């Protein structure tokens, strides 16, 4: 399944000199600042790549962005300011975590909605079935039930 992805990647690397993400010469001396830069980089998209963060990408643009992020951090920006700066420059496309707004409500809302609606349907269905088929189930006494459970366990019935 990585085939297409790999093909894209490879095509973007037509030059014989391939280098991968985060070069040693890009990294900041200050380990705290560098760690922040890495964490930020993982949230930012390399816009010419297919869904890759600038931390993972080896495209020249990703390199430029990594350097830019580090420059902003050195200049004393907060993480938020760096993100805002990049969004002002490149649009929301640069953020791998789309911010919640009117056009991403459906995106962020779907996972909890799927769970809630699914759960709701299941509860309704269980209730409906109990109403329709109340007599279908003959109750066993608790001792009978224990005996059945024991027998089932003994037979290791799956």
């Amino acid at each position, binding site marked *: 399944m990585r085939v297409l992805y*790999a093909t894209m990647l490879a095509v973007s690397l037509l030059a014989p000199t391939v280098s991968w993400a985060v*070069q040693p010469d890009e990294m900041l001396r200050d380990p705290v600042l560098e760690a922040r830069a890495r964490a930020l980089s993982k949230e930012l*998209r390399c816009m010419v790549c297919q869904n890759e963060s600038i931390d993972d990408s080896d495209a020249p643009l990703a390199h430029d962005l990594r350097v830019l992020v580090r420059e902003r951090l050195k200049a004393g920006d907060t993480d938020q300011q760096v993100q805002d700066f990049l969004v002002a420059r490149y649009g*929301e496309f640069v953020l*791998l975590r789309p911010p919640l707004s009117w056009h991403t409500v*459906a995106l*962020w809302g*779907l996972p909890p909605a*799927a769970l809630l609606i699914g759960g709701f349907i299941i509860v309704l269905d269980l209730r409906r079935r109990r109403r329709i088929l109340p007599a279908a*189930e003959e109750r066993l006494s608790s001792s009978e039930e224990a005996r059945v459970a024991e027998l089932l366990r003994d037979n290791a019935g799956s």
Partner: protein
Amino acid sequence: MIAELGHYALTLALGLALIQATMPIVGTRTNDPMLMSLAAPVALAQFIFVAIAFGALAECYVASDFSVLNVYENSNSAMPLIYRLTSVWGNHEGSMMLWVSILAFFGALVALFGNNLPLPLKANALAVQAWIAAAFHLFILTTSNPFLRIPDAPLEGRDLNPILQDPGLAFHPPMLYLGYVGFSIAFSFAIAALIEGRIDAAWARWVRPWVLGAWMCLTLGIAGGSYWAYYELGWGGFWFWDPVENASLMPWLAGTALLHSAVVMEKRAALKVWTILLAILAFSLSLIGTFLVRSGVLTSVHAFAVDPRRGIFILAILVFFIGGALALYAWRAPLLKQGGLFAPISREGALVFNNLFLTSACATVFVGTLYPLALEALTGEKISVGPPFYNSTFGPLFVPLMLVMPFGPLLGWKRGDIVSATQRLLAAALLALVALAAAFAFEHGGPVMAPFGVGIAVFVMMGAVTDIAERTMILRIPFNAVWHRAIGMPRSVWGTAFAHFGIGATLLGIVSVTAWGSEHIAAIKPGEVIDVSHYRLTFDGTFNRPGPNYSDVVGHFTVRRASGEIIGSMEPTRRTFPARNMATTEAALMTRGVSQLYVSLGDPDASGAVPVRLYFKPNVLLIWGGAFIMFLGGGLSLSDRRLRIGAPHPAKAKTALAPAE
């Protein structure tokens, strides 16, 4: 000549598929057993002709016949035989040929081994299978023909994309396609059941082995692709939430849900309507995956619009099959009888819980993958949905699933005893807490949530062990008796335990690597020493090594323990392919238990310093090892007696299953 033979065979296969798609359905409508029995031999014949076409294409590759455009574009005579062969599916046309070959192969299997199926069900299912086959044969012949010739044959081919020249890729796409296409059987049976308007527990028993087989292949295919990305892309990432990966994850999630709901249907004749829907969804998601990967829509909506022929064709296939299936479902599903009452806390209840969370997770991946495409197509607005989105949506959905998983097998059918199940899981929970505490105490750095991840993973694994321990009554009765119980247990019980243990192991691997992996990036010169985790690596320098169709620059590292004892050497490689003027990284891996040291090499700079990336990946092998254990679990389940001896014969089935309806 060979290419023309292949082309001709494929055209004949299309013809046969059209016969197979229509005649048996006419047979079931007019109640004509002759027409219905036509389905099986025609399915076999269709497979033979597709196989001839695929074989012809493979022969063109093996013989390096560069007068065939597809071979010229994707192969090279200097490539080793194995890669000339795997190049067949290393490109669009060839991979579509692989797709239809596997589809026809499954059709042939149903034709051969489906003797115990009721004739109308078999005829309808094979006909639906043939509709899919016909659509894709037509797609290949009209938009993606691999047999086209070049008038003036070039002497040498352009080589397979170097990144694909790898043993991992020899097996990854076929496994994945076996999974994708395997779900077509469940789909065809679901449609056949809807056409007939009746379905019973036996249906689930017929379909389950196919789903299980497809799921096993998909599991291994996804894991294989992940491992390939891990060592080939040079920085040890194993999952990227890339749309192409999501395309394979969605059918896996739906297929896993289907596997579980089919159990309920088989044992308790409940969840019939839902199981049918899942069978439709699993294959629909496979089709969507094929569309996403093959249409170019992922690169950008615009790239899709520039050359839309293939994309539009697959989209049409998609709309026809998914839309048609869902419409048929909406129309016919209300006819199906529901059965089986159960309490919320019961084995069925746990499986419903599983289905709720798996399908929600699947919906999450679906919306994350397609939302940006839809938004751009509708409003022109571009957004990115990347790993951070999935980490904060998909992750939380998996936590409850994992926590409930160990309870499922311990609960009884119809009405379960939660107190007794909890008591039996106490030991597992205790071990999980110990692991959690240990992770807190001994691992530093990493997210605060990580030790909880370890705890959940251990709980899942120990839960699976508990299930087996309880059923064999180990430590409570003499060993001999335990042994007899262990081998006497249905294999599907073992299968469940293995699969659940496997997912726990995978989770443990993912959490460990993500939270506590260490990384060291530096430009180094020969003689320099780098410490990673508790290992010390000395860079001894680089040397050149020629290969068949590439040349290598190999870095040599000596690996020592912190004590100074030499434990081996590692040779990361930069591989340059002159035919395409491209290079790949071949990372060096050293396995220590289930953890790995990982070294990859960059291009030397002007001063002679070589950029290197060194990683220590704790427990990383558990990620794929867990997937392999899941695969084994599937295999054990598949060998279960009740599936091995097949479903009851139709005549018996009627009497045996009548009360269940």
